[in-house]
């Protein structure tokens, strides 16, 4: 455990540029948008929209983080893999640090989204809190979920790189990714069987805003939330959790047994 915690500490240092980049890009975007909308008197509206857009962009935070962090290790595989720790420990350290960084970045963005949002949407504090928590948890969980698929794709890339040039290996993985996505949707997700195993444990979330409506003219810009009564199935989350655990252990096994330095 002590070795793994030390590895986590190292991963925080490896992945720091991604956190800094995310925060700096957000702040630069914020300043530019605030400066351009200032004379129209819509600064807070713009801040809210930037917050919402950048917050939604965090769906891809973990994928980018993992690509960067694994890319750093690719140059020093002899160092990263020469370790008695199981590969799942090596990868988990990256997942944990990426998740912490994403939460930090998302919290900063959420503050802007909330402060800006207050100016163009009149929700009660409870509603804001509910929407905020649901959105926050979904962005974090989707981002982590997606990154596990990215880890598998990257490990397959490392594996193929032993047999073909990097560019070709990357192309094969990229095409394979879309074939996998197409087949998994067509053969699994879009079936009655999948519906049966996922659509259980219905949870009613009540009214949830799920889209934005923009009404922009020369004189004014009106932004409204649109929403409806929403429910989710616990089954969907459980099945996806099991799926990514399987994907994670396949990636770990490949890294442990098949990837060569």
């Amino acid at each position, binding site marked *: 455990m*002590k070795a793994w915690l030390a590895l986590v500490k190292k991963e925080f240092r490896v992945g720091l540029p991604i956190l800094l980049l995310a925060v700096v890009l957000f702040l630069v975007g914020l300043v530019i948008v605030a400066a351009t909308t200032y004379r129209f008197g819509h600064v807070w509206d713009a801040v809210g929209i930037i917050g919402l857009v950048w917050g939604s962009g965090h769906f891809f935070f973990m994928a980018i983080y993992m690509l960067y962090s694994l890319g750093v290790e690719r140059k*020093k*595989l002899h*160092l990263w893999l*020469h*370790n*008695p720790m199981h590969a799942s420990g090596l990868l988990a350290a990256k997942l944990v640090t990426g998740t912490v960084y994403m939460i930090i970045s998302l919290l900063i963005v959420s503050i802007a989204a909330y402060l800006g949002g207050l100016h163009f949407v009149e929700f009660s504090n409870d509603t804001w809190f509910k929407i905020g928590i649901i959105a926050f948890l979904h962005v974090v969980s989707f981002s982590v979920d997606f990154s596990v698929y990215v880890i598998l794709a990257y490990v397959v890339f490392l594996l193929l790189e032993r047999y073909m040039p990097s560019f070709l290996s990357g192309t094969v993985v990229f095409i394979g990714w879309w074939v996998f996505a197409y087949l998994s949707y067509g053969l699994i997700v879009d079936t009655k069987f999948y519906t049966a195993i996922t659509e259980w444990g219905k949870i009613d979330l009540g009214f949830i805003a799920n889209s934005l409506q923009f009404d922009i003219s020369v004189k004014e810009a009106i932004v409204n939330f649109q929403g409806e009564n929403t429910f989710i199935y616990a089954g969907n989350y459980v099945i996806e959790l099991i799926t990514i655990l399987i994907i994670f252990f396949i990636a770990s096994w490949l890294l442990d*047994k098949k990837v060569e*330095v």
Partner: protein
Amino acid sequence: MIEFKDVTKRYMTKTALRDVNLKLDKGKIIGLVGLNGAGKSTTMKLIAGLISPTKGSVELDGKKVTRRMASKVSYLSELDEYYSFYTVQQTIDFFATQFPDFNKEKAEEIRAYMNLDANTKVKHLSKGNRGRLKIILTLSREVPVLLMDEPLSGLDPLVRDSIVKGLITFVDTQKQLVLLSTHQIMEVEMILDEVIAIKDGVLVDHRDVEELRYDEQKGILEWMSSIYE
């Protein structure tokens, strides 16, 4: 201790090692020599578990070698890529956390002996000092097997000398097996107990250096010339 049984390693169409049978015992410093591309690095990586044989098996103390055999093997790569944001001391500390057998006192002793500043960032180290850092990290582990792939490559004579002297001083020749590959034969000849020659992926000879010297009146270079010419 280490045993290669009919080991072949292929990379696509290229055969890096072919039908290698080899036994290495502890308590020796063994040189692995050969021309570039002969299969020296492949041999090292197979023992470190960083690659797997295409055919045959590599065993350490009777167990098949895997990547996680890093708990018994300290491997110095020919590459000197380290985490550039760390200082020398932070790199040593990080290694100490990853390997329970890492001896920090010994690391400090070797660092002082190598005259390497603990507070310099790795990214600011010269090639020679990165070579020294590699030696510190490798020799500070109290493991049965030390693998050193080209530890003297590209370094100036003074650094090479300090590394060779470091090997004599800091390796426990009773308990540890050191396998080192190098082109600088002259500089390591005096410390080698055995020498292995590889040519085009084939193990061509494995000799006791003292026997070679007294029985055949040959130094390693002469012996190599007879093999490679």
